[in-house]
């Protein structure tokens, strides 16, 4: 029992500080709290003994004891927080893991470069006002050839060796142009569409696959110029390769366009600087896209009056663009489903 008369709040405080230093766990702190601040605690007792002091001493002593009480409370609280932090730190040390362990669950899958580029191209052309049109892969002669100004025996049929089906008149479309024909017949003019999809030609070597992908486009309006066609193509090339590339437009021939052009783009591998470049074979140019102004016969087959409307169309190989974009050398490997190759595209 403390004698309030002889008690010095400083002594109590010093004793508390000494004890506090020894407290290592929150339980120790609780015990300290009870001993000093509990109902029968030292400080409580001191407050209770205030009454025994002369009235003139009481205010000073009361203040001193109350100060002591709040000091102890503060110190306890601060120490409590410190201990909690230490305990948490200890807990966390025990629970530590190696975050470099492999993840659980499934990794992200992987995209096929051709499909990825196809969607990218669709977005570019939607941005230019072209809507996406789709059509069947098995076609008839009318939509694949006749309506496109390729009558039977036309030498242009040699340009596109065709797969035919056994037992009927059907064929695997050799280009996505039949979708253009179908769209003209369905929607009429004016028209702005792109037609992405699989096409088939009877050909197989490192740069030809019997199945590949095209994205064709068609714009029909009044007074369309070759300049409009060039503008669209230059825009698309810059977007798809992410930088302005030099291009050139050569005369060419397609039965469904007149005039017909071919677009070459500066070699993305060597920019025309490497005579031994394997991508451009040293020419500095890459053939990228055939195109032209829609032949009046094709417009007529599509139910559109060539006296009122004209337009342009193009057809580009998506696989080729994907190969250039992702620096791939063999077209056919795209269709072998090689998991290591396709999963590698993720990195």
């Amino acid at each position, binding site marked *: 029992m403390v004698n309030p008369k002889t008690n010095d709040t400083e002594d109590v405080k010093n004793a508390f500080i000494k004890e506090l230093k020894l407290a290592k766990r929150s339980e120790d702190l609780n015990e300290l709290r009870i001993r000093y601040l509990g109902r029968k605690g030292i400080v409580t007792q001191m407050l209770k003994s205030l009454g025994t002091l002369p009235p003139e001493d009481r205010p000073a002593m009361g203040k001193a004891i109350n100060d002591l009480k709040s000091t102890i409370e503060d110190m306890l609280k601060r120490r409590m927080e410190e201990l909690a932090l230490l305990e948490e730190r200890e807990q966390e040390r025990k629970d530590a893991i190696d975050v470099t*362990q492999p993840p*659980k669950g*499934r*990794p*992200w*899958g*992987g*995209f096929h470069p*051709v*499909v990825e580029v196809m*969607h990218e191209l*669709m977005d570019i052309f*939607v941005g*230019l*006002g072209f*809507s*996406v*049109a*789709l059509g*069947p892969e*098995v076609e008839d002669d009318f939509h694949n050839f006749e309506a496109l100004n390729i009558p*039977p*025996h036309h*030498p242009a049929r040699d340009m596109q060796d065709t*797969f035919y*089906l*056994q037992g*009927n008149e059907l064929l695997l479309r050799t280009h996505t142009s039949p979708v253009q024909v179908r769209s003209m017949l369905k929607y009429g003019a004016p028209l702005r569409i792109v037609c*992405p999809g*699989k096409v088939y030609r*009877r050909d*197989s070597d490192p740069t030809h696959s*019997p*199945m590949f992908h095209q994205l064709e486009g068609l714009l029909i309006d009044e007074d*369309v*110029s*070759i*300049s*409009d066609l*060039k503008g*669209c193509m*230059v*825009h698309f090339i810059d977007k798809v390769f992410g930088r302005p590339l030099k291009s*050139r437009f*050569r*005369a*060419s*021939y397609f039965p469904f366009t*007149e*005039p017909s*052009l071919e677009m070459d783009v500066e070699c993305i591998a060597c920019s025309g600087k490497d005579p031994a470049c394997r991508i451009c074979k040293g020419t500095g140019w890459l053939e990228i896209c055939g195109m032209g*102004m829609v*032949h*009046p016969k094709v417009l007529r087959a599509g139910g559109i009056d060539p006296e009122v409307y004209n337009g342009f169309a193009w057809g580009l190989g998506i696989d080729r663009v994907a190969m250039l974009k992702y620096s791939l050398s063999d077209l056919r490997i795209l269709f*072998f*489903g*090689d*998991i*290591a190759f*396709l999963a590698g595209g993720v990195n």
Partner: protein
Amino acid sequence: MLVSWNWLTELVDLQINVNDFAEKLTMAGAEVENLSYTAQKLDGIIIAKVLEMAPHRERKNLQVVTLVWGDERAICVTGAQNVKEGDIVPYAPPGATIADGSVLGIEEFDGVKSFGMMLSADEIGLPLLSQEEGILILPQDAPLGGDAASWLGIKDVVLDVSVTPNRGDLLSMVGMAREAHALFTGSRLKELNFSSTTELSDWPVSFEGVTLEDSGCPLYCLGFAEELEIAPSPIKCRVRLALCGVRPISNVVDVTNYVMLLLGQPLHAFDLDKLPAPEITVRSSRNGEKIATLDGREHILSSDDLLITSGGLPIGLAGVMGGANSEIDENTRRILIESAHFLPARISTTARRLGINSEAAYRYARGVDKAKAPLALSCALDLMKKWKCGKVYTSVIREGDAAPVEKFVPLTAKKLKTYTGAGDLSEASSILIPLGFEVKSCSEEKAIYKVPGYRMDVEIEEDLIEEVARIKGYDELAARLPGRIHDSATIGLESRTERKIRETLMARGYIEILNYSFISPKFIADLSIPASDSRANPFALANPLSMDQSLLRTFLLPGMVNVICDNLRKGWRFPVRIFEIGNIFLREGANLIEEKHIAGAIFLGKDDRSPYGDAVRDDFFTMKGDILALADAFRLKFDVLPGSEPFGHAGQTADVISDGRKIGFMAKIKPSIERRLELPASLYVFEVTFEPFLMAKPPRFGEVHRFPSVYRDISLIVPEDVTVKEIGELIGDLSSDLVTSIRLFDIYKGKNIPEGHRSLSFTLEYRHPDKTLSDEEVDELHTRLRAQIESRGLKLR
């Protein structure tokens, strides 16, 4: 088409180098794919005469040759068998360079020094030039001591030009020269003149004439020569043919080829004495009729092939290839030379069906100017005279209509301006005239041009616009984005849907695959598809590249399985997920149904070790999660119910149901098929049709819950053949309307559960829309539910 630069510049005077020419020709539509510089390394080759030959003392197969030119002599050793004394040969003395770049020196053959060597056609850089093995023998008039390379004219640039199918007129040297002339202002076109021919026959033979029975041959010209001596053609002609990729054969055959290269008109020579009768009839073939052609093949004809016949028998496939029976040989003394016009469609049909790619058929299929036929014949007769092949007659037979077809095409300034931005018709004329067009009339707004006969491709105004634009060059034209948007553009529902599906599947760990649409017939056996299954009855390609790619796929699964098997073969061993979105082709009666499908496969891996053990292993239910997530992404409700597939594990196969209709399957591959395909671990597969995803429902959100939910669990012991779905639905039916969700949280078999049974534990959510439920209220509801379940004879736990 191979174009000799030397020959071309003889026909048109071009003040330009070959590279600039090639560049401009390419830009104007005839792509120069390659420039090859022939015999460029050849240096110091001398024309020399074989003075004497003596056998080598030691080596029987060698001869010691003494060569002479002017005052000089040289000795060399040769193994060639074809040289004899007096022959003129190309000789490479020590220090000279032969075609492959090697420099010759002095070599010793068992004591005899050989100074350089005599050269073969190969060593001189033109292998085609010589038919016989050994040294190239030069004509007797070759200048001794002269430079062999320049005298032969073999140093040249050969342009490999890819001519588009519409430009048959460019398949000739004169056509190329004309194009060059049009491309380069200021160039001059040389004129070619041929002797005129007469039409009345003074042939000293009783030839009865030509009969044209088929409209496929509107014009047929025949020339005649006799007292022929079949010999090699002049060396310079042979060099020229060889440079252009044609093998020289004999003077008569070479004349026909030379004229074809020069003018683009195919010619054919028949041995008159081999004709079955002294007449020629052009008619269509009879179905099943046979002909043996010059290339040694026999062909069975259909009823629309065009035939050259004599005495009723075929002697040639018109425009494609001559018959073996009337072939020129070394004994030929009298010939008929044919120069005819055939319709392109007929020739291309025959050539394509029979698979004959002759130079003649190639040109006829692309259209040869009718006016060329008589001209080419004159040219050929002139050459035969010049080459002294024999007695050549200037009179010819001409059967059919030689009148040229006249074509006039208008060009308006307005359209020209719309297409090219400039509508200057006089500029247009200045471009068209060098190409051979004639101005019929011309005003400010409109000009009319006469199209030259060889430009069969020019028919409409747009064709003329192309001529003007391509000669000017497309790079001259400005590029601009087309204005006038009429409607907002859209990627469309189908592509948008496909995009979302692939992105969902990729996010769930599937790798995107593209398989060929054609598959091998072995999928039917591999996957045990019964014949009655529509998937076992695919459409076949009439002309597949290989058996492995001969059928149109009827579903995507075979491709998925193949990918796994192929990758295993290549050493893949880990778990992997793949998917494909693509079209399949089903037979429905006589019709073909083309449908888009989505398929996926999960292969558990030959090596599935993981630091986390079983917790991360895929199985049927992880794949089910993927399919339902796909449905959720489109707010669709799919059911997965017990089902069966011929390739599916009988206990682990399900139908995927949407709107009460089966849209696909998911399955573990049947154990026997796993064994057959040598799969080292389980393979789970799914395939669903694409079409339900197009019916995506718009998103809909419910009310925000205002009062808390209360949860109660319930466990039942049920026979193993009762499904979770059935029990879940039963609880749903029996429970109060205040039960807002029923979730399975435990399945237990084993201790305390009778054999053949399992315990299913659900947690039920009770919620009232308008008030907080008290524990007592919920207890009462839950107790009532338990009683009702028990009253159905089900055991609670």
